[in-house]
């Protein structure tokens, strides 16, 4: 049952990332990615992290992707992007992908000595995550609020129209 769920979710994630790569317009790419993030929220749930799964779906698939789609809608679609004109670039990308995949495979083989199985044990309950977040990680959490503040101010300053232009 859990394995079937994993296979379904994983193929949705990979399929929609492929859909993102092969779709021509940024808007469709963003919508494919919403699907990918929602499905990977399900995978997070399988990994015993229900709180992070909810955060993933609400913040990532919800808020961040809506931000992307807003910006895409603000930019007029004046050009359709061709898949790629230059073959060299595509070939180099594929070569890079193969090398990177091989490297990750090697790293994985080393990291996977003694495998264990995923199963729910209540590790990442909201209560436990909250405890860890506000006890062990209190200072990073507070500093994060500073980061968000800086990003907010920076985004406003950057996108403000200058009077002279």
């Amino acid at each position: 049952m859990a394995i079937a769920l994993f296979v379904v979710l994983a193929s949705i994630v990979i399929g929609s990332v492929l859909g993102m790569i092969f779709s021509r317009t940024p808007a469709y790419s963003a919508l494919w990615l919403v699907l990918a993030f929602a499905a990977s929220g399900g995978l997070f749930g399988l990994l015993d992290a229900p709180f992070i799964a909810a955060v993933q779906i609400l913040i990532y698939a919800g808020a961040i992707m809506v931000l992307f789609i807003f910006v895409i809608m603000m930019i007029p679609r004046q050009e359709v992007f061709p898949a790629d004109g230059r073959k060299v670039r595509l070939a180099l990308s594929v070569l890079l992908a193969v090398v990177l995949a091989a490297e990750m495979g090697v790293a994985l083989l080393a990291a996977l000595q003694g495998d264990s199985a995923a199963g729910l044990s209540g590790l990442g309950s909201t209560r436990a995550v909250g405890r860890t977040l506000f006890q062990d990680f209190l200072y990073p959490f507070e500093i994060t609020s500073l980061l968000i503040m800086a990003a907010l101010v920076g985004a406003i300053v950057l996108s403000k129209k200058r009077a002279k232009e």
Partner: protein
Amino acid sequence: MIPLNWFLALSAVLFVLGVVAFFVKRDLITMFLAVEVMLNAANLAFLTFAKKQGLLAGQVIVFFVITVAAAEAAIGLAIILLVFRRRKTIRAEGADEMKG
């Protein structure tokens, strides 16, 4: 029970797909989306190792990564809007020169 290896393999595949998307796509917004895919792959790996070690720190790190991704999206999209306003295009080739 699902072997945890599968999650790590999926994470690696996702990361590679993100890298490929970053290099294949030509508009700034989709390249940015590819970065998000890579972040997501890293999150998946963090959660897998958190599960494997039985440590909650891995899950808290994912929380921070999502927060930083939100901040990064806000700034990055503002920069993309700025590039579009100056160059009238969001193709990566349109922003290949820098001026002081």
